């Protein structure tokens, strides 16, 4: 089991209303124990998962928005966001959180691994993935 596989987590649900977003996040965190190349993709209402400024103090729910910011430490290399889904919701990448990534050995740094992509790029990414998990 030394072969590195490409894992893609496909997120299509809004946070909080259903459990999908949090479940996906937990699986990513757990899966990080295995050496795989992990990317996340946010499509449809899934793009709402990354919207900044979440405040759950009045709703008695755990605010897991900050947890996305540690995903770089968990080996997640890319977080792709579907541009068309953003536009349909009146959002731009400025409305989304930023997630840093750093290679602890080489100290190579990326300021933000959140990136908007179009459908063509998305198709490519899906085709390249060995495994796709849908949430």
């Amino acid at each position: 089991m030394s072969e590195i596989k490409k894992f893609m987590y496909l997120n299509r649900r809004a946070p909080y209303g259903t459990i999908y977003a949090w479940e996906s996040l937990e699986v990513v965190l757990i899966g990080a124990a295995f050496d795989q190349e992990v990317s996340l993709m946010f499509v449809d209402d899934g793009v709402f998962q990354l919207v900044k400024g979440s405040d759950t103090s009045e709703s008695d729910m755990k605010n897991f928005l900050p947890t996305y910011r540690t995903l770089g430490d968990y080996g997640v290399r890319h977080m792709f966001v579907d541009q068309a889904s953003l536009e349909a919701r009146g959002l731009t990448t400025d409305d989304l959180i930023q997630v840093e990534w750093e290679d602890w050995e080489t100290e190579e740094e990326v300021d933000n691994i959140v990136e908007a992509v179009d459908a063509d790029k998305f198709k490519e990414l899906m085709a390249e993935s060995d495994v796709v998990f849908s949430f």
Partner: protein
Amino acid sequence: MADLYTVNKSPFEKNSLEQAIRFSADGASILLIEDGVYGAMAGTAAEGLVKGASGRKFFALRSDVKARGISEDRLIDGVELVDYAGFVDLVESTDKVQAWL
């Protein structure tokens, strides 16, 4: 007295909001809760639902709006934010409550 309709699904994922508007009588109140609050956001592909519905009064639950990081200035004009007490007031002041799931 008019009825209160609650909608808890995202308008991008289900047609609950569209149907609640379509089947509600003139003068009805429509309260957006949970993922339903996305229907109250301005500048989206779904904003036409609320904007185009005349004779309906729209409300959104503040705690759900805040949890989703939607700031007040991004809400469609005329949508009124209510807290839990406001939710109760709405229930009290209307004939009956119908949930669009």
